[in-house]
């Protein structure tokens, strides 16, 4: 069995397990009938969609399988940051003192999934919206801009987020 076939098989198995886990969570029963329907459905859907779920160029398991404890810590930190930045946004809405500007910077994260999660999480954390993500280059609308220097803006917007994300994915 050559490498690309083996990699397809591994991706297929991971997709089927993920689908089955979601099925078990939502059906909430272990009766034989429901279990058989879940397994058959997971296998059929996984055979159709494993290529979309995990792209072929994701070269290692580390690039899409998170470390569970780091992921739990990251989501907790994300919710804390969500409340903090929402509080600042509330103050800015009431006072009207803002400085919107568009900044560009690069990220050091390497896998597609980690970059997607980074751009999604900076869409809410310090009052920013990701406008474009092109390989490792992000275009961001920053609501409380303090600088237009690329490196300094990158540190201010994504520095702490990226530090936590690098522990979760590659």
């Amino acid at each position, binding site marked *: 069995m050559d490498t690309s076939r083996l990699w397809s098989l591994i991706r297929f198995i991971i997709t089927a397990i993920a689908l089955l886990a979601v099925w078990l969570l939502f059906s909430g029963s272990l009766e034989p009938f429901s279990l058989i329907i879940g397994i058959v459905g997971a296998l059929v859907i996984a055979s159709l969609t494993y290529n979309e779920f995990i792209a072929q160029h994701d070269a290692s398991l580390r690039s899409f399988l998170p470390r569970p404890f780091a992921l739990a810590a990251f989501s907790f930190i994300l*919710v804390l940051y969500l409340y903090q930045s929402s509080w600042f946004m509330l103050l800015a809405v009431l006072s009207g003192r803002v400085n919107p500007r568009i900044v560009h910077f690069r990220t050091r994260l390497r896998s597609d999934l980690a970059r997607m999660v980074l751009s999604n999480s900076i869409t809410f954390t310090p009052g920013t919206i990701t406008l474009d993500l092109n390989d490792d280059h992000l275009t961001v609308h920053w609501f409380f801009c303090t600088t237009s220097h690329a490196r300094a803006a990158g540190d201010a917007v994504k520095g702490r987020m990226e530090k936590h994300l690098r522990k979760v994915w590659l």
Partner: protein
Amino acid sequence: MTLARELLALLFFASAVIFGIGGIIGLFRFPDPYSRLQAGSLCGTTAIFSIFIGALLLSTSLAVAARVVVIMIFFLVSAPTGSHIVARFAWNSGLQPWKPPLSRRSGYTDRQDEP
């Protein structure tokens, strides 16, 4: 125990109302699409998230709590993606962001790019 849970849930529901009203005010106060998206999406996300946390505190069994957690995860993925799509369309159609007058700005400003 039940009383403490209900009080905590009430606190989260109250914060949801406050953040929701803040988001609506921001939506009508700022003049351009990017700023409106910022206020609306961020405060709206926090408001809905507070309601989910309150529901999680009030949930009666572990199965219900697990489903609420799954909905929270889906929401955490879909809400920023939606606002990103709108902002990306505005950016690709060439819309420039609004700049408030100098006296109303926060933080440091680059004077050289003023007209």
